[in-house]
């Protein structure tokens, strides 16, 4: 079995294997190459329901920004059917509108009983930093969490669109070849490369908001957090 076959087996096994490769790479101190977004994570969150794999922010419609938070990566189709969001984990989108790297606005997504609740965008005052509470007084929207074999569920309200559920992992990279390079079995990438994340899924939370709700014009800094109760 080569590296890419091994990666298909199951999520927990893959995470341990990938962490082992990362450790080897660090010890060997070869020209360590970039690795998958945050797909290979820190010990504290690796493989857990709080594990963020990727973050995207881009213009959807001309006057809107889409925020995508992906979690629980490298899900095989079978594992996806069993995957779920954790009711003790909040996914928080942080938006800094005045360039000081402290959040001014937040959007919080938290699941309960098959629905994903989205609070905000709402001021972050009193809720910045490493711990926080759910802002239940903020504007709230909810959507049924899309099931693996079910119809896609979307909710729309006041210019905001929301979705939560399994999606094809949009990330693409030849991570297997990276493993070959850091393991000392190769000195370059292949051409063409092979997308190690092909055929795998993630649990995604997607929200599209009008730009007017997040500063209107100029530039924002943004990052995503998971917070566990």
């Amino acid at each position, binding site marked *: 079995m080569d590296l890419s076959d091994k990666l298909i087996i199951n999520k927990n096994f893959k995470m341990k294997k990938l962490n082992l490769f*990362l*450790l080897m790479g*660090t010890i060997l101190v070869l020209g*360590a*190459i*970039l*690795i998958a*977004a*945050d797909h*290979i994570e*820190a*010990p504290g*969150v690796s493989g857990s329901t*709080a*594990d963020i794999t990727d*973050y995207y*922010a*881009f*213009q959807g419609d001309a006057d809107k920004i889409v925020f*995508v938070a992906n979690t629980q990566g490298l899900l095989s189709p079978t594992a996806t059917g069993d995957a779920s969001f954790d009711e003790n984990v*909040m996914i928080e989108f942080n938006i*800094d509108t005045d360039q000081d*790297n402290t959040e001014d606005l937040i959007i919080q997504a*938290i699941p309960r*009983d098959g629905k994903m*609740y989205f609070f905000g965008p709402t001021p972050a005052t009193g809720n*910045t930093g490493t*711990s926080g509470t*759910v802002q*239940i007084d903020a504007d709230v929207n909810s959507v049924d969490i899309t099931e693996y074999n079910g119809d*896609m569920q979307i909710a729309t309200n006041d210019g905001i*669109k929301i979705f939560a559920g399994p*999606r*094809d992992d*949009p990330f*693409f990279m*030849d991570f297997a*070849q*990276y493993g070959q390079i850091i393991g000392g079995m190769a000195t*370059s*990438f*292949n*051409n*063409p490369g*092979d997308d190690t994340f092909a*055929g*795998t899924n993630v649990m995604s939370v*997607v929200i*599209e908001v009008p730009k007017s709700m997040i*500063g209107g014009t*100029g*530039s*924002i*800094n*943004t*990052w*995503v*957090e998971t*917070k566990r*109760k």
Partner: protein
Amino acid sequence: MKYIKIFTLAILAAFTLQNCGDDDTVVETLPDFSGSYSLADQMGRPAINTVLVAEGNKDAFNTTIPAEQGAAYASAFADRLSTLSPALATDDDTNLLDLNATGFGAVLATDVLTVSLDGVTTFFDGTNVLTGRNLSDDVITTELTLIFGGEDGSEIPTLSDDNVDANDKPFLTTFPYLAGPF
């Protein structure tokens, strides 16, 4: 009997008025979301923690707020970049953004994604740089090029591109834009 009828009508009227709200919103009670939630993981740009943070510090990086990450990690990132990449080994070595290891490390250490509200949103499209991150951006090749590509992007070609430049499924043209699961 008359008073009971009037009372019943009043109750019915009260319920009717309550349910004829200003729009279709159904007044529902929220579940109980009380409690304190503590930071577990965070992310701004792709690949930063995994490549540039030493093994023993990854959890610490994840629980350092962005406002404090620069002071804590800029110097370590600069060292890591100059050690990893021959194309950023000395102070005179710069990348396509005209940044050397120190400058690039300082940019990356505060792990946030910059997003423009005024125009094209992309990690890098040849013209626009760090104005967002859209689904089709080849962020890995962009970051490899910024680490290994040197001044004009071509210094170490074998390490600057993993030659995987697109997702395995086409994205949707409408919300939620991500393709359905396998």
